[in-house]
Structures are given as structure tokens and as C-alpha cells.
């Protein structure tokens, strides 16, 4: 593949949220390459280099995966479980970006090994701040195990 290595995988089915997230990145000068998966199956295919991503090199894992919980086909919780239970991907940082503040979602996510859980603020200013902070932190400051 000729594209550059994907650094952020955004798993989000809602196009407005995708647009707002990308806008927040751009506004905060996060220029890392982003791949957007619109459902859980696409995300899993991308991560494990299956289906239409079969020729992608699996060892080029994203620096961070931003994951919504309510997704078509395969739920966000299931995607998280598969990532964290696979030796090849379990070290990839996963940040849940969800609208849900429900305690059960929080507990379940942390049990599955999520690295961070962020509730999407309704206010764009806060949303933009949250998303960019996550972007900076995981792509720039965080030192991943090599």
C-alpha cells in the first residue's frame, strides 16, 4: 500500500461526529493520518488485516484507537474485547469515546482493559478540547512499548 502508516483509527458510525472529530483534530493541528471505520466489523477487519484490508501489514498498528460503543454490525464493546484478547493487538491503546455516561458501560469497558473512557461533551468547545487532548496525548506524549 502506498498510503502512509495510519496513526489514529477512529471507529464511529455517526457522520456528524466523524466530521466534528476530524474538525477538532484539524483545528488543533493534529495532522496524523486518520482512518475512519463506520462499523465494528470494518474496524476489526482493519485491525486484523482481513477482508478488504487483507494486504495491510498487521504489525503496523495505529498509535491509538478511538472507539464509539454503539456501532452497527459488531458492537464497540465486542471490538474492544477482541482487540484486548489478541496478543498482537492487546498493547494498542484504546480510548472509548461514547455518548453514554452509564456506569455499566464504564465498568464493562475498564474490565475489558480500555486505556481511557471519555464521554463526548455536547458543547463543541469542550468536545474539541477533549478530542484534541486525547489525540495529542496518545500520538505525541505517550511512549508505547516497542
Amino acid at each position, binding site marked *: 500500500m502506498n498510503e502512509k502508516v495510519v496513526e489514529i483509527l477512529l471507529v464511529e458510525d*455517526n457522520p*456528524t*461526529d466523524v466530521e*466534528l472529530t476530524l*474538525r477538532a483534530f484539524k483545528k488543533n493541528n493534529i495532522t496524523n493520518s486518520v482512518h475512519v471505520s463506520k462499523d465494528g466489523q470494518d474496524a476489526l477487519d482493519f485491525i486484523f488485516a482481513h477482508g478488504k484490508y487483507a494486504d495491510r501489514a498487521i504489525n503496523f498498528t495505529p498509535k491509538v484507537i478511538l472507539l464509539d*460503543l*454503539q456501532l452497527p454490525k459488531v458492537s464497540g464493546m465486542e471490538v474492544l474485547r477482541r482487540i484486548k484478547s489478541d496478543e498482537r493487538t492487546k498493547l494498542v491503546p484504546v480510548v472509548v469515546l*461514547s*455518548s*453514554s*455516561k*452509564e456506569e455499566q458501560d464504564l465498568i464493562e469497558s475498564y474490565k475489558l482493559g480500555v486505556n481511557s473512557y471519555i464521554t*463526548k*461533551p*455536547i*458543547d*463543541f*468547545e469542550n*468536545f474539541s478540547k477533549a478530542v484534541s487532548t486525547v489525540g495529542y496525548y496518545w500520538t505525541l506524549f505517550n511512549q508505547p512499548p516497542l
Partner: protein
Amino acid sequence: MKIETRLKLNYLISLSVIIILLIVLVWIYRMMIKAEENEDLAADIRKNALERIMFRDEYLMTNVERARAQFISKTKTVDNLLTRALHNFTKTSDKALCEEIQKSFDITNTIFSRIVNIRAKDSNLRRGSIASPEGEQRLIGQLILKAYDLNGKIARLNDSAELTATNVREALVLLLLCFISLMVISNIYNSVSIGNLLGKRVKMISEGTTIIGAGNLGYRIAVSGDDELSILARQTNDMAAQLQNSYAALEQEIGYRESANRELEAFSYSVSHDLRTPLRAINGFSAAVIEDYADKLDDEGKRLLNVINDNAKKMGHLIDDLLAFSRIGRQELKKQEIDMHVLFNSAAQNFIYTVSERVFHLDIKPMLAAIGDPVLITQVIINLLSNAIKFSEPKDSIDIEIGCSPEEHENIYYVKDHGVGFDMQFADNLFGVFQRLHSQDQFEGTGVGLALSQRIIHRHGGRMWAEGIVNEGAIFYFTLPKSRNAE
């Protein structure tokens, strides 16, 4: 058979045995009297017959007229006695004996009369002579023989009468013994069987009620019979069945409620998730317009977009509050002993910095410990404190007093401010969801805080109410169960 019937039967048996016994006693007593009479009669006959023989012998030997007259008089007596005997003796053998005696007696009389006749004819010839002619000698011989026979028969009658009397006496004693033992045995049998039945039934019912009482509502006491305790056992069974039905109905009801609760949870989950997303879009894109097209918009255009922006935010808060409110109802209470002083104090710390530029005077009176969920109670305290501060803002200083007074089973806590207060006629509206007493421009807020606080207190079994005077301040009270270790 019913126990009552059995007990009645017991009494009836005793009564009838006594009655029968009395009748039999009277009957036997009469028999005995009669037998004794007969005994006396037979003895009398015997005595008189012997005396008659004495007079007969005297007459035969002396031929004295007095002796003859005495003999005839005795004969009459014996004849009368025999007539009575014939009438009185009822036993066949005795009656036959009496007849025989009568016959022999008559014969002796006939023979005696003939002797007397012979002697009367010869009186002139043989006056003074004792010697008897040959014919007379023969008659005398016959008379003695017959009299001997008669005496034997009379003795037999006497013996028989004595025997009868003895028999009747013995029979009386025997019968008495029989009846008494019959009565005693039947009463003992009845009492023992009633006792056994009672014991068996009571044991069964007691075991059954113990099992049912322990929670096995499907258990039924094995019932046989139609006595009172069987009826009680059946009623107990009916009661258990009724309980079982009610229990099943309740469980079904709980099932419905649980599923309704699950639906509600799913509902609030989707509200929480799905309602937020479009709001974020509204807010985000109106912000994008302001950012990207700032040069093309005049001030009014920007203001209108900001109104959209603010309202989207406000709706976000409303959704959050509504969800928080609905979550209180479902959330499990983690009750423990709470040091209310610590709770009030740490909650108050949150506000010190927000009002630092104002005169903030907080007076926390001595506090009593309570029982409750500290997280939820903290939420109540924060709500009350933030209200007190919010509604004190128009005043020069913020003056808040927190205190507590003990009641019998609960403690009353209060938060008193000297803020804008409220009109008591609207006191009931204070705790309604989204109910506000002030306009949105005067004081911020969604109007859920007090409703939420009251719901938390209600879930703890407490009460919450408020008193206020316009422009003078308000006091909010809530109660919580006392700590058991308070004393």
C-alpha cells in the same frame, strides 16, 4: 366422626348404662323380694306342716277333741299357705311341686277325715280304749306314709325357694359388676381413642404449619376424617394454597416490574446516547459556522447562532439531569453510618473558591451521625448548599447556617440561608421536576436539583420540606434515620 360427637357419645353411653343398670336393679330387686317372700312362704309351710303332724299324732294317740280341732285349724293354715304358694311360685318345677304338695296334702286330709269318721262311729263301743281296730290301723299307716311324702316335698320346695333366692342375689351382684365394668371399659376405650386421635391430628397440624411457616407453601397436611381438627387442617391447607396463589401472583407482578424496569433502563440508555448525538451536531455545526464564516455574518447572525448553541447545551443539561433523576430510583443504596459533620464540611469546601470574592459566612452547628448512602447524601447536601449560595447572590453577603436536631427515630438537618427566599404558597412546587420559582435569567438551573434531592431522601425513608420568606431567606429541612450507635 367429630370429636364433639365422640365426647357426646361417651356421655350418652355412661348415661344409658346407668339407666339400664337402674332398671335392671329395680327388676332384680323385685325378683329378690319375691324370691325371699317365697323362701319365707316355703319355710312357713314347712313349719306349719310339722306342727300339723304334731297335732295329728297327738289326736291319733289321745283322741282328744282339742287336738283334732288344732289339727284342722293348722290344716286350714297350711291350705291357705299352699294356695298362696300355688299363686306365688312362678317357676314351672316349683309350680308342679306345689301342685303335688297340694295333692298329697288333700290325700292326707281325706285319710285323716276317714280316721275321724271311723273313730266317731266306734266311740260308744270303745270309749276309753286306745287300741284301734285293724281298719283304722291301716289308714293311720297310709296317713303317716303320705305325710312323710308330703314333708319331703315341702322340704324340696323349701330348698328350691332358698336356692332361687340365693341365685337371684348372686345374679344381682354379677350383673352389677358386669354393668360397671362395661361402662368403665367403654369410657376408657372412647377416651383413649379420642386422646389418640387428638394427639395424631395436633401433631400433624403442628408439623404441617411448621413446614408451611418455614416457606414451603406447596406443602399440604394429609387430612382424613371429618372431625374438628381435620377441618382445621383443611382450613390450614386452604390458607397455604391462598398464600401460594398470592405469592405466585406477586412473583409474576415482580417479574412484570423487573422487565418494565429493564425496558426503562434500555430507554434511558438510548436517551442518554441517542439524544446527545444530534445535540452535539447542532452545537458543533453552529460553532463551525461562527468560526468559518465569521467574516460573512453580522453581529445579529452570530448572536442567533449563539442562541442555538446555548440552547443545545441547555438541553444537554436537561437530559443529564433527567437521567440522573431516573437513575436515583434504580440505584441500589449502599447504606452505612455517616458522620454528617464531615459530609457537610467537605461539601462546603467545594464552594469556598467559587465565592471567594464575596463575604461567605458558613456556620456548621454540632452534627449527629445518620444512616445513609454517603455518595447520595453528599449530592443532596451539594444541591442544598449550591441553592443557598445561588439564591444569596443578590445579597451583600452569603450567610449560611447548617444544623441538626434529634427526633425519636430520626434526625432533622437543615440548611438556612438569608437569600431571596420564596413565597410559602409555592412551597409545594419547589420539589417538582423542572419546577422553578424564579425565571431562567434570574437564576440558572434546570429545576431538577430539589426534586432529585427529595427523591434521594425519600429512598432513605426520610422527609424533605422547606420554609421561606420572600427576601429574607429560606430553610430547607431533611430527615435521615438515626445512627444506631448514636447513644
